[in-house]
């Protein structure tokens, strides 16, 4: 779906609002395009000028005698719609609107922005911005942006929602020698947003890694699809800031750890997106992916000329979930024979303080050859003997001979090591000052490798024994009653219609009715007040359990009604629900909340009091979830240890739990109106399970 590919092959550009005056945006743009070495035609447009920066200036777009691939617009915001009309009439299909004072200033600006978008849609123009910094492409090459720095050519594609960050990075990248393929500033994202550009970069042969700085995501589900497809081809690394997108927050009182950020985290993980936590990490990862081959696994070898840094690096490897490689016997033998006696031949390989380039070279080659090593970290401390530049040359040479394994250099020092580190960077070997960022980068790469290995998708879940019409009928009644919260009896009926073993629940209006229900259901029973207005029934003493005969049920009914009236005088309960009491099982929770951005999110974990205490909950997006993923979701929690039979307990029926979660996921996916669903507690038994209390909230 790389619909942008033909559009972004730019051969001619018009700059509308071009200016003669140095320092004005309209002048900066003209100069930037010229200075970037753009070989196509440049048409400045300004009704009052004849010539700008040596180029013929046109009165209007219609006066330009040739076709135009890209219009860069920097006229004042109120004039933009007219300019866009002109662009449309001229047949221009791609525009970059630098002008600001649109939706970022409020409703008036938003209206103007909508007008602009409407015109774009009318003429089939794809637009960057408004309020963006422009686009840069080192392969065309063209700098159609206000960035004074034009980056070196490279294979990193960069999408930035922040203009200022983009400007800073373009400037900084030159000092560290980082090269980019294509760079896009998103601005207000009135038309083009991250989704389309990720598609484009995924199909772009000149881009090896996709980098995004995002503050929010438009069209969450489409974004995930794009990212998911892209990450099968190349790594997609996202730095996501801006927690204020509260529309994306998702929470329920018990799966309380759910927050907007968690929705992002879950969605990103499932789409295979690598999430950077800091700006440093974003560019470290970019550098690593850009420069190095992918590690085949997570086994790291460390070579060092000093003990302390080796220990720090080893611990960091473990902390990042990687493992220290265990060398083959041949490697160990060769290291033992050739390294000094005081050296440590096991990982981390300590080649001691007097190591020079030759010893580094020997050790590095030995571990590179070892099939048990997936990546190598090489630490150089400024000892008296160390010759950092020669060591750099040796590393570069060996990298060329063993191009399939990634090498990360840690030049732990400052001035003494600066030149060596620079040589490595120029030769595209990532070099760091301290171990943590280097190993964090390896961890990111290994994560991507693991994901690439896991590309075998399971089949989608389907059931033949579900009764969606029954659910429709229940929802119809609830909506007619202008309620968004289902009564327990209704929720149980909905779950049952989807084949979930819900504990029988019946609504009683009078004490006599409650007794009759209990007699049919069989004792013991538990009574719960039925009201959509009451979130926590026990808080208002609206629950009475362990009832074993008719008299107890009768009295409990009246007690519960009176308790609730005392706590919440304005709430009129629908009645009292009679629930069958179940034997104790392993207490679990299954929750679902519809994230505004990414759709339904499903949660599984230990239930009861443990929910808030242990926060032992794992999450997945419900749409298209497979049985294998549900099993993985269960096994991620501490609850899974309990379920497998902890300390002589009988193991629980995990297959029935997987089936239950799959049914809940199906229910949520089938009925978009369900905004929340919570089964808490869910008792798991050696044979089957029982869903005790089901809460369902729907949107009217």
């Amino acid at each position, binding site marked *: 779906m790389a619909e942008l590919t033909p559009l972004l092959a730019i051969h001619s550009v018009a700059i509308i609002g071009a200016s003669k005056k140095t320092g004005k945006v309209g002048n900066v743009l003209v100069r930037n395009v010229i200075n970037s070495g753009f070989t196509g035609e440049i048409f400045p447009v300004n009704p009052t000028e004849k010539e700008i920066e040596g180029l013929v200036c046109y009165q209007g777009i219609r006066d330009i005698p040739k076709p135009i691939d890209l219009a860069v617009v920097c006229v004042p915001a109120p004039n933009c719609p007219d300019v866009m009309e002109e662009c449309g009439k001229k047949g221009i299909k791609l525009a970059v609107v630098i002008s600001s004072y649109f*939706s*970022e*200033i*409020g*409703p008036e600006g*938003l209206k103007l922005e909508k007008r602009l978008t409407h015109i774009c849609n009318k003429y089939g123009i794809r637009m960057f911005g408004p309020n963006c910094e422009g686009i840069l492409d080192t392969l065309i090459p063209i700098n159609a942006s206000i960035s004074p720095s034009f980056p070196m050519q490279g294979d990193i594609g960069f999408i930035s929602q922040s203009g200022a960050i983009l400007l800073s990075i373009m400037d900084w990248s030159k000092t560290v020698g980082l090269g980019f393929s294509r760079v896009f500033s998103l601005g207000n994202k009135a038309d083009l947003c991250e989704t389309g550009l990720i598609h484009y970069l995924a199909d772009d042969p000149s881009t090896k890694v996709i980098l995004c700085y995002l503050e929010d995501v438009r069209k969450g589900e489409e974004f995930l699809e794009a990212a998911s497809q892209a990450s099968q081809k190349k790594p997609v690394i996202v730095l996501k800031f801006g*927690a*204020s*997108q*509260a*529309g994306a*927050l*998702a*929470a*329920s*009182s018990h799966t*309380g750890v*759910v*927050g907007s950020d968690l929705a992002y985290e879950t969605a990103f993980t499932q789409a295979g997106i690598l999430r950077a936590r800091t700006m440093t990490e974003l560019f470290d990862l970019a550098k690593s992916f850009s420069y190095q081959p992918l590690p085949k696994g997570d086994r790291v070898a460390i070579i060092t000329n000093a003990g302390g840094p080796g220990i720090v690096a080893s611990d960091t490897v473990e902390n990042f979930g990687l493992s220290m490689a265990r060398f083959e016997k041949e490697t160990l033998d060769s290291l033992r024979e050739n390294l000094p006696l005081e050296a440590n031949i096991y990982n981390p390989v300590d080649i001691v303080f007097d190591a020079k380039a030759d010893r580094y070279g020997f050790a590095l080659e030995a571990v590179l050859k070892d099939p048990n090593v997936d990546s190598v970290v090489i630490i150089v401390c400024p000892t008296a003997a160390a010759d950092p530049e020669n060591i750099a040359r040796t590393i570069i040479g060996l990298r060329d001979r063993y191009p399939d394994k990634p090498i990360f250099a840690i030049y732990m020092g400052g001035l003494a090591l600066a030149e060596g580190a620079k040589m490595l960077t120029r030769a595209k070997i990532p070099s760091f000052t301290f171990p943590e960022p280097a190993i964090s980068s390896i961890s990111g790469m290994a994560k991507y490798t693991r994901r690439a290995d896991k590309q075998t998708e399971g089949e989608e879940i389907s059931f033949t024994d579900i009764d969606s019409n029954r659910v429709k009928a229940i929802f119809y009644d609830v909506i007619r*009653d*202008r309620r*968004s*919260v289902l009564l327990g009896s209704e929720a149980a009926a909905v779950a049952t219609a989807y084949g979930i073993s819900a504990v029988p629940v019946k609504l009683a*209006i*009078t004490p006599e009715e409650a007794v009759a229900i209990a007699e049919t259901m069989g004792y013991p029973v538990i009574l719960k007040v039925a*009201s*959509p*207005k009451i*979130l926590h029934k026990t808080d208002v003493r609206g629950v009475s359990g362990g009832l074993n005969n008719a008299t107890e049920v009768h009295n409990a009914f009246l007690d519960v009604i009176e308790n609730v*009236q005392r706590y919440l*005088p*304005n709430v*009129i*309960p*629908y*009645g009292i629900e009679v629930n069958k009491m179940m034997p104790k099982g392993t207490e679990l929770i299954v929750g679902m*909340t519809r994230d*505004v951005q990414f759709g339904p999110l499903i949660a599984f974990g230990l239930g009861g009091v443990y929910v808030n205490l242990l926060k032992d909950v794992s999450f997945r997006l419900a749409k298209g979830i497979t049985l294998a993923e549900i099993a993985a979701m269960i096994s991620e929690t501490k609850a899974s240890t309990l379920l497998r039979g902890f300390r002589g307990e009988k193991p629980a029926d995990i297959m029935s739990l997987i089936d239950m979660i799959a049914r809940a996921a199906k229910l949520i996916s089938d009925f978009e109106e369900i*905004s*929340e669903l919570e089964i808490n507690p869910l008792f798991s038994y050696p044979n089957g399970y029982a869903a005790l209390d089901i809460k369902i*909230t729907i*949107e*009217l």
Partner: protein
Amino acid sequence: MKSLYIMGSVGSGKTAMAVGLALKFKQEGLKVAYFKPVGSTTLTSKADEDAILMKELLNMPEPLEIISPIIASPLYLSRGNRSTEMLRAIKEAFTKVSTNTDIVIIDSAIYPYALSTIGLDSPSLAVELNASAIYLINAKNDYTLDESVFHNRYIQSHGVNLLGNIFTHVPIPIQAKIEGVYKPLLADIGFSTLGIIPKQRVLSSPSVAQVHELLGGELLTGEDNLDLLTEDIIVGAMTIESALVHLRRGNNKIFLIGGDRADMALAALETSTSVIVLTGGLYPDVKVINRAMEKGVPVLLVHYDTYTAIERLSELAGRITPKNQNCIRKAIENVERYCDWQGILRECK
């Protein structure tokens, strides 16, 4: 000429009942007039709003000062006891209104006991105007039934021909209780139940325009959507993590929140919200206004605190306007489907 005095507590749906009965009787070919002896005014209207509504609906030629001859504010006694001239005015106006009609629907003041000090409460006026009465009950619990029985007895003790009671705005959960418990109990003590009307959204839900009128303040966006109905009030005092759970439970809600809580306001906009009221005079983040505009949700900025706003909102009740045909249709339907209007007409003297 018959006359029927409609009494009931605040929010019991007296106006809807007046509209429903008057238009139903009119449909039946009767000449119907409306009379509200003791009216009240609001900030925006100088005449009684019910009088304005009914004058239009019934095409009454009489001026508003005749349809509602007395306007009494909560501080009416400041002008001293003017009961004699008030009663005279009421009687004169009533004579004019009732001339050439088959039935006059008389609407009671905001409370049935209003003006009791000077002897012009609804039961006393019913005697003066020789009207039969019905008493509307907005039953919330057993005490509100007690209150109604208390009023019933008081009305009867004046010698008024009390036709019976109509339960209004009945939520589904207590329909069965009213039918099975309240109605027989009332019958035992001699009061007949003339109707049980279920709660109707269009009649009991105030519009955003009413919220604006009541709270004042600056409308930041949503001018075109002031006719949205409100059904719930939620205050954004919860944590952001649990906000959605609460927000998703309120339909067509009025959401009250400080202007500096952009996160909460944005979350509310993703759920069913009819109006966002920003308290404390804090202007919101531009994102909030943009999103509200996109969603068509009015945003109101008020300069007082949340508590004051809530207090003011407690006065909010659904209101019928002449333009709102849907409301008017519902009011007639309620009378037709759920009330013994033939019985009322028959027994009314």
